């Protein structure tokens, strides 16, 4: 026989009584009798499997039964049982698991962290217990990988299937000249482990796709987006929202960068900011538009800082704020970001509940499985660089137009070409003879295809686009022409 004190919110299940006297020789028997008598109480206290719910503690008089005989604790007449929830919480991150410890070598290595009160041993253990996925080991991924490894983030996943190229070296400081031609993921892993052999690097040498994204991301606490294209950016966003993982975002263009944290603690997601991708081709990539080599360092390190803050649960995160950086003006600005209640991904009534086809969504073709340059097909309306060379050598009567920018023309050009940047091209259409034989090129064939389309719309018949642009010219016709 014992008196059970009923917590306020549960009295609705006991006919408003604040205490109930029930029979039983042990705590288990008393609780069983109680929840038999008041069956609605059962769900409040026990799980469906009949175990005490994780938040319920039972006290016999002043003692927690866990430290007595648990369920079998004997109950005597006049005893009082109390149901007391265990309650805790905090602004951010859970404490590191107890099994995470720091060796003396690690304590020495991280000493400058350990003596900051906001980090300390507890914080360094959080870093060690953390699992962070870096999508991309390029411009943003390079500083991220180096600094997160140095900071002691215990497990760092890398997603990249690209190979180091000479044009990467101007900014992707995790890769060296000797690494050109190697998989980026191998080169990055090597550098990160050289800095800190205590971290575990997991290599995902694949393209992140709708098929594999959830499976890869689910094992990490946090995702850092270092991608350079819209389909992957939307994919990372949607996967993070679906899996409830914070997405530390950064993007760069020429002299300007942005950073924020999406999908964290009820904050907005990428789709709240950009519900739709820009029309294909409107926003140039770094390869098309160029980027100051140092810029991804600045933005990547803002992402690294936010990542470490999330792990440590300190400071004020960029959730709900878009940080804009202008390297030329050397100014930071901030825009307030709000969660869009109508967001199809994270709004009140989400309509996107699984990953979709992101190439179709962004209106860009699925990346081909790396076609060898030699086998590039020449379609109707196109011309191969070798044929172009023969045409020039034969002295054919034709017009060769280069639609790149003047600063690109200064780097290299094909002899005899006339420079008309794509932006000014429509104004010059009237200067050409619709009957003339016209060949147009750019760097790789994208912009010149647009120029060809403009002429064809204006009734030009003999217009051809140079497949592969001046890069193909350098490869197949004149290796002395520098590639950029």
């Amino acid at each position: 026989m014992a008196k059970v004190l009923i917590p306020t919110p549960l009295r609705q299940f006991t006919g408003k009584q604040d205490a109930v006297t029930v029979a039983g020789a042990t705590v288990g028997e008393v609780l069983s009798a109680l929840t038999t008598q008041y069956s609605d109480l059962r769900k409040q206290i026990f799980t469906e499997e009949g175990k005490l719910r994780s938040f319920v503690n039972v006290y016999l008089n002043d003692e927690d039964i866990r430290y007595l005989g648990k369920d079998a604790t004997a109950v005597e007449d006049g005893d009082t049982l109390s149901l007391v929830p265990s309650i805790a919480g905090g602004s951010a991150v859970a404490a590191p698991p107890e099994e995470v410890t720091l060796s003396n070598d690690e304590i020495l290595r991280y000493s400058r962290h350990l003596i900051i009160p906001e980090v300390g041993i507890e914080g360094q253990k959080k870093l060690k217990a953390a699992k962070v996925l870096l999508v991309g080991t390029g411009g943003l991924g390079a500083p991220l990988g180096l600094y997160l490894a140095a900071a002691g983030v215990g497990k760092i996943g890398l997603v990249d299937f690209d190979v180091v190229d000479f044009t990467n070296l101007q900014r992707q400081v995790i890769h060296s000249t000797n690494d050109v031609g190697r998989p980026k993921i191998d080169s990055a892993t090597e550098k990160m482990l050289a800095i800190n052999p205590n971290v575990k690097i997991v290599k995902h040498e694949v393209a992140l796709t709708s098929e594999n994204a959830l499976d890869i991301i689910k094992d990490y606490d946090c995702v850092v987006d270092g991608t350079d294209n819209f389909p992957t950016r939307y994919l990372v966003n949607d996967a993070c929202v679906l899996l409830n993982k914070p997405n530390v975002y950064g993007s760069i263009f020429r002299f300007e960068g942005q950073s924020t944290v999406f999908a964290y603690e009820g904050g907005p997601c990428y789709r709240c900011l950009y519900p739709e991708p820009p029309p294909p081709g409107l926003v140039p990539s770094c390869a098309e538009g160029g980027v100051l080599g140092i810029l991804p360092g600045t933005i990547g390190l803002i992402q690294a800082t936010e990542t470490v803050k999330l792990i440590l649960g300190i400071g004020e995160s960029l959730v709900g704020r878009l940080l804009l950086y202008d390297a030329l003006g050397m100014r930071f600005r901030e825009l307030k970001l709000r969660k869009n209640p109508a967001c199809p991904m994270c709004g009140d009534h989400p309509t996107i509940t699984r990953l979709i086809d992101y190439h179709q969504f962004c209106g860009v073709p699925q990346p081909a499985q790396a076609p060898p340059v030699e086998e590039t097909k020449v379609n109707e309306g196109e011309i191969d660089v070798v044929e172009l060379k023969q045409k020039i050598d034969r002295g054919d009567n034709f017009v060769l137009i280069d639609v790149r920018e003047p600063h690109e023309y200064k780097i290299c050009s094909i002899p005899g070409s006339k420079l008309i940047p794509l932006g000014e091209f429509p104004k010059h259409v009237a200067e050409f003879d619709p009957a003339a034989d016209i060949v147009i090129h750019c760097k790789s064939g994208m912009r010149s295809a647009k120029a060809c389309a403009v002429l064809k719309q204006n009734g030009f018949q003999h217009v051809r686009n140079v497949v592969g642009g001046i890069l193909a010219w350098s490869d197949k016709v004149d290796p002395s022409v520098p590639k950029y």
Partner: protein
Amino acid sequence: MIRIESEPWAAMVAHAREAYPNECCGAMLGVSDGDKTVRVAMRLENAFEGAQATRYELRPEDLLAADKAARERQMDLIGIYHSHPDCDAYFSKTDLQNSCPWYSFVVLSIRQGEFHHANSWLPNFDQTDAAKEELTY
């Protein structure tokens, strides 16, 4: 809906400011007849052993004492409050995973030592989600 009377509200804000940069926690006593009214805020000790800037923990015996204090005043224990220093008043994963669906959870956001905003949350049984509860003070 939960309404906090001015006296307990002032006590809660003062408690959160004093505890800054650490988190504070306490119990809210009052009456509940569908809508809840908080009449008394009772400070409880943050018993978390570690950095209290991002964590709090209530001792069950303190909670028991709060429940008892409520009974003695013919009131109910209707909720728990705690502060988020330099963070928003969201219901974090840590909050959720250590919550109890029986009570209202009021979170006070304290920025740079000053009160910023507050929210009240009602966690579910599985500790997987919390609904925002209308809060007036």
